[in-house]
């Protein structure tokens, strides 16, 4: 395939709006190619979008669907010769997820939290999502084996468990949600800060986070730890955020990337002592990121309208449901974590919601380096992902922000810095925040750029970057980003002007990390005991089978022990 004459933004390769032809051969970007030609003359061209944090598959998502038939009724689209039928807005059915991302020019999305024990469910759903390449992050932050390894200061065994857990869940990276809190929630309690002891386990969240970060780097995983802070969603929690970030300053990255990615930063950038004096600490957080380079964040942008909050932070969802008198689903997983789901509506005249909305924008606009701050709405927690064009339009246009500020609760003017922010992002910023940045943060080498050998994932938009002024023409920007002129996935034209033309299956990424045999053996003896005594299923039925990943893309990491090599001399054993 040849894409002719587009204005290409490929910041990972230092290309900032150059007129270029693109060639895709065998599903990858090439120097020349045969086949059909697409005319993109003068149009905006970027790599396919990459969403690094979105709740798209698994028990939480399906619980959201089951408890919200009202939501499923929104967004109903009948089947057609190419597409299965679609339902839902905040909790779309599996088909709608694939088609709607593809319509916007997105070709990759990662599920943000899956417990090992029910990862099979997650993969059952990921398999059903058409078009997208995907992966799932695996929950480790309240896992008994993790807590015990941390308590015993046995980093080698912890790394062995992380490797085993990723393989068991066919997971891509280490997700930590309210570390220790999920275990405490098993008896209805929570941890209140970094140095609060997890009941019955004699460890603190600080120790859990630091140990998992070190284990992550010992294994050289493509992604860093992916962290949902303690105290998320509470007024005054920005101090927990900064305290936690400081904790990780000393950890050495094993790859050219951050040592910690902060999930949905907006929900942890709150000041105030309670809801009455609730205020933004977005500027303080952005300032921290401007001064440090060991961490990245995604926005977790809130937009006004319906959302369905879902997270492994079980106590947070309980608190949400009581605060909002909303219906509440909870699911705690034996030995591993908790989770909850609560639907809500963000109102522009609600002071707290309006401030939350502003914080997301502050974080993006005040963090100078777009490689450190990528765009998400923490779908569907802050808003459904179909609203990404709205976020981009807000980031690119101060007039649009001013129009919005005039309609939201007036406290935005006194409790946030948003009205003073002049910055208007350009297409390079946007290409970084929605493509190059998330791919680099996840460690996806073939995604988020258009260099030779990259995946043939390309988005062409009905926008002429040389002619329009996004600041003034923000409505045009928003409309064009919602329906890509062309979305190309792996060299196949999958969508044109919002119409899905084909729906090939995507691939699932997972990480297979090797560890020293001695550590693996120590671990397995311990796990066998856990399964005999505590788990309610057998170890032989636990691991996700290959049958659930029909198009795998396995990334190797950890110790790649070659035959005949002295295993004990490996880095893992030495560092331990």
């Amino acid at each position, binding site marked *: 395939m040849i894409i002719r004459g587009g204005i290409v933004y490929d910041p990972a390769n230092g290309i900032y709006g150059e007129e270029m032809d693109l060639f895709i051969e065998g599903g990858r970007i090439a120097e020349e190619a045969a086949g059909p030609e697409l005319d993109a003359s003068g149009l905006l061209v970027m790599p396919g979008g990459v969403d690094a944090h979105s709740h798209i598959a698994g028990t939480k998502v399906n619980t959201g669907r089951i408890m919200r038939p009202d939501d*499923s009724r929104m967004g109903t689209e009948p089947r057609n010769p190419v597409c299965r039928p679609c339902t839902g807005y905040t909790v779309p059915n599996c088909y709608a997820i694939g088609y709607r991302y593809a319509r916007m020019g997105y070709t990759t999305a990662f599920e943000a939290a899956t417990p090992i024990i029910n990862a099979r469910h997650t993969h059952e759903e990921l398999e059903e999502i058409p078009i997208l390449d995907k992966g799932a992050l695996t929950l480790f932050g309240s896992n008994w084996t993790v807590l015990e390894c941390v308590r015993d200061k046995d980093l080698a065994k912890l790394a062995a468990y992380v490797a085993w857990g990723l393989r068991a869940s066919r997971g891509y990276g280490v997700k930590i949600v309210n570390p220790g809190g999920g275990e405490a929630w098993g008896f209805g309690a929570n941890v209140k800060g970094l140095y609060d002891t997890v009941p019955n386990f004699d460890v603190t969240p600080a120790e859990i986070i630091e140990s998992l970060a070190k284990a992550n780097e010992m294994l050289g995983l493509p992604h860093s730890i992916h962290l949902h802070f303690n105290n998320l969603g509470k007024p005054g929690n920005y101090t927990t955020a900064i305290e936690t970030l400081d904790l990780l300053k000393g950890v050495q990255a094993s790859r050219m990337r951050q040592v910690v990615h902060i999930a949905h930063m907006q929900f942890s950038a709150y000041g105030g002592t309670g809801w009455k004096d609730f205020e933004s600490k977005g500027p303080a957080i952005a300032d921290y990121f401007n001064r440090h380079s060991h961490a990245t964040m995604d926005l977790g942008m809130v937009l006004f309208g319906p959302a369905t909050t879902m997270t492994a932070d079980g106590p947070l969802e309980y608190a949400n449901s009581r605060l909002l008198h909303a219906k509440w689903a909870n699911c705690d997983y*034996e030995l591993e974590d908790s989770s909850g789901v609560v639907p809500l509506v963000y109102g522009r005249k609600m002071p707290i919601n309006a401030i939350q909305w502003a914080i997301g924008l502050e974080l993006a606009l005040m963090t100078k380096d777009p490689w450190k701050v990528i765009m998400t709405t923490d779908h569907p927690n802050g808003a459904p992902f179909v609203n990404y064009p709205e976020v981009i339009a807000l980031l690119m246009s101060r007039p649009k922000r001013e129009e919005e500020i005039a309609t939201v609760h007036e406290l935005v003017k006194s409790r946030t810095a948003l009205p003073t922010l002049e910055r208007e992002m350009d297409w390079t910023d946007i290409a970084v925040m929605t493509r190059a940045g998330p791919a680099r943060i996840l460690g996806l080498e073939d995604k988020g750029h258009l260099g030779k050998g990259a995946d043939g994932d390309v988005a062409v938009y009905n926008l002429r970057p040389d002619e329009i002024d996004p600041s003034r023409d923000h409505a045009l920007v928003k409309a064009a980003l919602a329906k890509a002129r062309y979305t190309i996935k792996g060299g196949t034209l999958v969508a044109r002007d919002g119409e899905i033309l084909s729906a090939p299956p995507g691939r699932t990424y997972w990480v297979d990390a090797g560890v020293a045999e001695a550590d693996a053996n120590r671990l397995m003896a311990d796990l066998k005991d856990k399964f005999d005594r505590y788990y309610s299923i057998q170890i032989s039925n636990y691991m996700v089978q290959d049958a659930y990943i029909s198009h795998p893309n396995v990334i190797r990491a950890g110790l790649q022990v070659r035959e005949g090599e002295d295993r004990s001399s490996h880095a893992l054993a030495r560092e331990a």
Partner: protein
Amino acid sequence: MTEDVLCTFCGCLCDDLRVEVADGRVQKVRGACRLGASKIMGHDRIKTPMIREDGVLREATYDQACARAAQILLEAKRPVLYGWASTSCEADRKGILLAEEVGGVMDTTATVCHGPSILGIEEKGLAGATLGQVKNRADLIIFWGCNPAEAHPRHALRYSSNACGRFTPEGRSGRKVMVVDVRETRSAKNADKFLRLIPGTDYEVISAMRMILGGKADVVPETVAGLPKTQLVETVEIMKNARFGVIFFGLGMTHSRGRYKNVDNALSLVAELNAFTKFVVMAMRGHYNVAGIGQVMACASGYPMSVDYSRGAPYFNPGETTICDLLNRKEADAALVIAADPASNFPRSTVEALAEVPVIQIDPFENPTTLLADVVIPSAIAGVEAEGTAYRMDGMCLRLRKLVDSEFPSDEAILQRIIDNVRRLRA
């Protein structure tokens, strides 16, 4: 001996069975309850596909039966595809695709089982946990309107009353077990406390408990549905003082007067108890994969049961798109029944309506529905003769094993052949 085999009987989905296989047949099942062992051993198989001609079922080939099934579904204006709880999720997904292709209504056995519970969850959500959480943590277990001693025989030992775990090393002796029911069942006899309800008074009793929990005991009358207030106050105190409490509820709650409102009320009670202590709640699902069809349907359509595809897009309105209502209104004009037996379980008038329309049955075993079927297609037994996926009552997703080869095609393969025929006939 095959180890760690999953039991394809009830919603416990036990995964620790040992099965002896010799000469291509299951010889012995170890570690299962009697219900599970008898299911896996098998009985009275349907031997060949059959098509009814002149009122008599006559042998046919799979080609003929699948073609006839496709023709029936295509000729119908309002076909219903029903069952799905005792087969694999892979078959269920094919069923959804077939329903989309023929514009049918996809409904499951939940509709006559825990359907009201699902409506209750739509109203209130559900504060749940996996069965392993109960095993490791629960010191108070309440069975409300269910009788696991007879319906889920290994539940107590594996997951609940008698299970030992990290924080429950004493098992049964460290726990309080309470049963709420209208009669003294075997489960009630094994309980520490039995609350006997007058049939149909669940709603009143739960409401009174919520009042007491909310500090409004003074306005609760001295007796509620025949139970003395003091007993209810005492029960609520026990609940509040538990370290980890759980209510398992069954059809005694969901199908007595009040139906989904009972469940709604119970879910609210549990949510409110969390202000005092940890409390969770779970439906005692019946068939081994009835939870799975709900999950698969929700993922594919947004709704867990009773989905009408006649408009091309999923539409869900229980009472309208539920199979018993469609049959009662004489709206359904064909039915595909898979892994279920509506002739035994539906109300009489609906069975009569079913008998009047063409019925396709896919099942390994003969059952009363076979008597009114027009096309009968025998299939391999999922979890014995075919692999696949099933979800336990707590949502735990597990892989069914294939133990022996079978001369019969799987449900999934049969449905694919019907889909192929539908596409061929339409083209």
